[in-house]
């Protein structure tokens, strides 16, 4: 069941490649706007790079959440999935994993290019990718709760951002903190471990909350 969900969602994502790509382009464009707004000073850019890339990643993954349940909700598939005897927990986990594979992973892999634009060096680029790989699944997991709660509501997208962005703050702090620490040469293990801890915590709790929210929204 779990595998089936993942494969199915990946296939669906492949069929609507434009959506997936536009999330990535959004990420790219938002990050590129900052030097234009702030000025081309390399030192300043290097200083703000972790925060800028991470905030853009937050916004991009928030925008991709709309795809998580909305289509299945509209064509009635979601209702059928709720009726299956398999635990909803696994269904949610599978959908979130698929979403992460098409939004979080490419975003993390693309981030070094943006890091270079901001004058980050080799080791820091690596930390940036690692922190994004650890952090973006958390964003998808926490976001899935918000996506389930706002399913089918008017103004759902804006509402989703109000619900989800405050909950993203710890991920932002630990993620950009790790990159920051690698720039200044301080120990970055602490923030990466904390990011991992948040990931484990949200792996356990978030799908459960999302399942509850889906049942509420679909009643």
């Amino acid at each position, binding site marked *: 069941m779990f595998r089936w969900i993942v494969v199915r969602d990946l296939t669906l994502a492949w069929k609507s490649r434009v959506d997936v790509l536009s999330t990535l382009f959004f990420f790219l464009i938002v990050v590129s706007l900052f030097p234009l707004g702030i000025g081309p000073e390399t030192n300043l850019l290097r200083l703000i790079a972790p925060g800028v890339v991470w905030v853009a990643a937050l916004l991009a993954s928030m925008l991709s959440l709309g795809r998580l349940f909305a289509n299945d909700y509209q064509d009635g598939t979601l209702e059928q999935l709720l009726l299956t005897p398999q635990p909803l927990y696994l269904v949610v986990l599978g959908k979130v994993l698929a979403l992460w594979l098409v939004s979080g992973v490419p975003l993390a892999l693309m981030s070094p290019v943006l890091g270079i634009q901001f004058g980050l060096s080799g080791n820091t680029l690596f930390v940036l990718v690692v922190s994004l790989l650890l952090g973006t699944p958390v964003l998808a997991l*926490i976001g899935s709760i918000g996506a389930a709660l706002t399913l089918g509501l*008017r*103004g759902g997208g804006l509402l989703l951002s*109000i619900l989800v962005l*405050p909950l993203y*703050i*710890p991920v932002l702090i630990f993620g950009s*903190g790790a990159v920051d620490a690698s720039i200044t040469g301080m120990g970055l293990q602490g923030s990466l471990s904390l990011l991992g801890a948040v990931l484990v*915590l949200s792996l356990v709790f978030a799908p459960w909350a999302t399942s509850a929210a889906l049942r*509420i929204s679909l009643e």
Partner: protein
Amino acid sequence: MNWYKYASPTNFYPLAGKMIPWFAIPSAILFVLGLYVGFFVAPTDFQQGDAYRIIFIHVPSAWMGMFLYLLMAFYAAIGWAFNARLSSMMASAISITGAMFTALSLVTGSLWGKPTWGTYWVWDARLTSTLILLFLYIGFISLQASIDDRSRADRAGAVLAIVGVINVPIIYFSVQWWNTLHQGASIRLLGKPTIAPPMMAAMLIILAACWLYSIAVVLVRLRQIIVEREQTAAWAAEARA
């Protein structure tokens, strides 16, 4: 006496109406008393002068903001778990008061910050986490406001409030960590370890006044919510008339 009787909105409505003055009047008295002690009895601080007196409003409202969030989540969870409508209504009624106190503590905090720190806002750990708490309140309120189906709104709010409660310690801890990392202008809110007894007394009296005020206002709002939601019932139509 059967307490479950009052779990029904129909029966609670008149009881709440009778209870309101019992909380509102002591609250007003304690506010006056607390402000008197705070402004006239408590000594002037030798470092901050009279500017510190804003803590008599600031500290109780910050506490209330935090307590009420927990209380709101508790009521929302009870309402969700036991399908108790009144508890869910209570959560909705508390959310506005909680947001109001959180906003008040931010405003008074920045007004206090200007004379003491020289700036209205610093990214101090406490200020930042209070700001995030306000965001969580806003999320709860706007989620409930945008769902038309009341029963769905109640339960969706409950999920969000519970997720928020789990997140509050993580957020607080992460902000603290972030603050020490950035070496911000972290000035202790209460510089001295001990504060004079009249100051403490004033603060506690106003805290009690804030509690009573919250209960009274929540009951008033609860009554409005009950009438609004039960408007099809005959008794509510009578109550409105």
